[in-house]
């Protein structure tokens, strides 16, 4: 991760790490931590406390207003036994492919291509590709609803090239609704992955490419030997962001299909919303939220482990 750097322990660190035995409280330099107190207090009040409270509320049968009743892990048992939740989770995993894997793969192909050529106006190109990511998701959803509509541009284009048989209302069809919503995610996330990878690409010393070329590497070999390993950090960041977005996806689904047709595009976040605000089962809503959070942790953890720096001591890029 590159976003958060650890607190800089200040000049007294040498003393702190000296081999002399000191009592616990004096072993560290506590001054440094004092600077963290405001941020930590904020973090505690607005992040840790709500999380702890959610876990706590999940243990109650509560309508959000009147007295609650302790039910232990019953809410979790109910949630895990609910086939609708499992179906929704499965949809989320499909979204991981569309929201994370596909944009990463596409962006890598593009980056691999521009690593060898000089792109005029790269900055403008990059800004343009990033636009979908910063657009309001409601705007994105409405635009794509139009693109996918019965008389929308996609079907018009298909008819123009004689593929009338393929036309359909993409978001209203039981088989195509889920991948169609997924494609919207790919479009949104591609810009993020691309921008991250391009900035990573610019950090690779030109000598590495030269060396690879002198050694006779073709574009494919160069991509796998130089570009891909050098982008490991960026790929990791991109995957974590995009997988999280995929698993907690709600707004795009809500504004395109509302989970339909039937239950073909339901997602866990929808059930959190429904239990909390419609059926007033705040305990169950919290239980779903906790399960979803654990799932996100597990998947993101697995991805970080898979993309970990296996040879942290080697120089970046590791071609020598």
């Amino acid at each position, binding site marked *: 991760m590159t976003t958060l750097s650890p607190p800089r322990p200040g000049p007294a660190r040498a003393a702190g790490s000296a081999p002399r035995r000191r009592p616990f*409280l004096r072993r560290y330099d*506590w*001054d440094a*931590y*004092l600077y963290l*107190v405001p941020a*930590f*207090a904020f973090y*505690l*009040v607005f992040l*840790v*406390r709500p999380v*702890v*409270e959610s876990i*706590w*509320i999940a243990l*109650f049968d*509560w*309508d*959000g*207003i*009147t*007295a*609650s009743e*302790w039910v232990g892990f019953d809410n979790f048992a109910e949630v895990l036994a609910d086939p609708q939740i499992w179906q929704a989770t499965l949809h989320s995993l499909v979204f991981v492919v569309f929201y994370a894997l596909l944009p990463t793969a596409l962006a890598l192909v593009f980056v691999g291509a521009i690593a060898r050529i000089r792109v005029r106006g790269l900055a403008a190109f990059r800004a343009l590709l990033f636009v979908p990511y910063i657009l309001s998701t409601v705007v994105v959803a409405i635009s794509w*609803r139009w693109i*996918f*509509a*019965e008389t929308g541009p996609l079907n018009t284009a298909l008819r123009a090239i004689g593929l009338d048989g393929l036309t*359909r*209302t*993409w*978001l*209203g*069809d*039981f088989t195509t*609704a889920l991948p169609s919503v997924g494609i919207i995610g790919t479009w949104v996330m591609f810009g993020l992955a691309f921008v991250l990878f391009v900035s990573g690409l610019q950090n690779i010393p030109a000598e590495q490419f030269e060396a690879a070329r002198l050694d006779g590497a073709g574009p494919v070999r160069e991509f796998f030997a130089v570009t891909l390993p050098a982008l490991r950090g960026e790929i990791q960041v991109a995957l974590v962001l995009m997988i999280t977005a995929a698993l907690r996806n709600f707004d795009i689904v809500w504004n*395109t*299909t*509302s*989970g*339909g*047709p*039937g*239950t073909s595009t339901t997602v866990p976040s929808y059930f959190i919303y*429904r239990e909390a*605000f*419609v*059926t*007033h089962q*705040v305990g169950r809503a919290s239980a779903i939220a906790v399960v979803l959070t654990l799932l996100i942790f597990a998947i993101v953890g697995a991805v970080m482990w898979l993309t970990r720096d296996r040879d942290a001591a080697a120089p970046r890029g590791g071609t020598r």
Partner: protein
Amino acid sequence: MPTRRMRLTGAAAAVTALALGLAACSAPGGSRTEPSAPVEKITAPVTPEQVAELGEVTLSVWADQGEQDFMDQLVPAYEAEFPNVTVDIQFKSFNDLTATVLNAMNSADAPDVAQGNQGWATDGALVKAGLIRPLDDVADAYDYRDAAGDAITQLQWSEDGSAFGEGAVYGMSPDNQMVGLFSNREKLAALGLGTPTTLDELEAAFAAAKAAGQTPLVLGNADKASAMQTFSILQGALTPAADTREWITGAKGADFAVDSNGEALDRFAEWVAKGYVSAGYDGTSPDDAAAAFASGEGVFFIGGNWYAGAISDGAAFDFTPGLSDGDYASSGSFGMPWHVSSKSDATLAAIAFVGMVNSPESAELLAGIHRVPIQPVEAAGDDAMFAALLDASATQLDGAGPLYWYGWATDTMFDTFTGGLQEVLAGRESADALLERVQSDWVDFHTD
């Protein structure tokens, strides 16, 4: 250089904050709210003199954003009649309002007046938590009960919020919303047909339209609710309205899984199979469908009378209530009910506000902005579409009445019903299987 004492203080502060954060965990929720200062029942409309005794007050009001045009006229009239009251009104989108009104009414500075929504999710929860005042006396004092007629049951709850459709009136709503049949007059005339009033005539018109190369029925169901509303025209024609209402309000032993409802589902699926329904309806928004119909596509559009904003040309289009087979029953209800907070410290001013919203005088204001009032109005004006809306509303209320909305039946019924209906229409689920699921949702909810 900080002293060690300071360092220790900092560490102690951090630990204390952590402990406080975690110690917030006592069992969530409080007890049922009991009204702090119960106000005597009123017997006549609240007078300015009574309200003046409250001194200078600010009346906090939460309303749906659809009420804005109406409120722009009503609030000044109210403030003129009750000069010591300042109305502080906040408008919310429907989703926002229904999702947050319960917590707002439960908060320390709850609004004095707020709109809810019929059914268990909002009104039922408000009554259960004791957050709103019963309005039986207000309904009588403002001649509301007579105007509402039998349909007043949609505003009634038992005191503990466990029974819907009986008990005290907890809200009042001034306008009527209903699903009806919009038809394209010119196209019907070209087919040699008039506006159909029976199910057989409607299906014959569909067949004739199809044969003439027209789209018989324009539907946009991306919101999932629209197909359910369309279905109500069929279901209302085949099943007695009283049975459906009893089922929706949760009367003991009510059953939706009856043959006539199965027939209604099968016939709707048949409409789709025969190509009577516009292609791609599940991926089309209802607003887009209404706009397409208004611009001349298709022969019929089944939808709420609120689409008259988009389908506004009364010379080109007609609006009729449900079919005569079922004595004009179709989905419908009053608009979002207005409630008085049981925590209000200006209860009389709040009652005066809700009373005025629902008074015969305000009916004229509503008619002026083409909303269909429950209280009788003098004249429809010269707008043909609005005249049709008034006519349809009166026909339905005099006939079998509104069916209410299937989604009210339980707090998960909207999802069960709408999702299932999409499956049935696509031929992926049988009518019987859906009816069984719908009824088991109902049974689960009422045995909890």
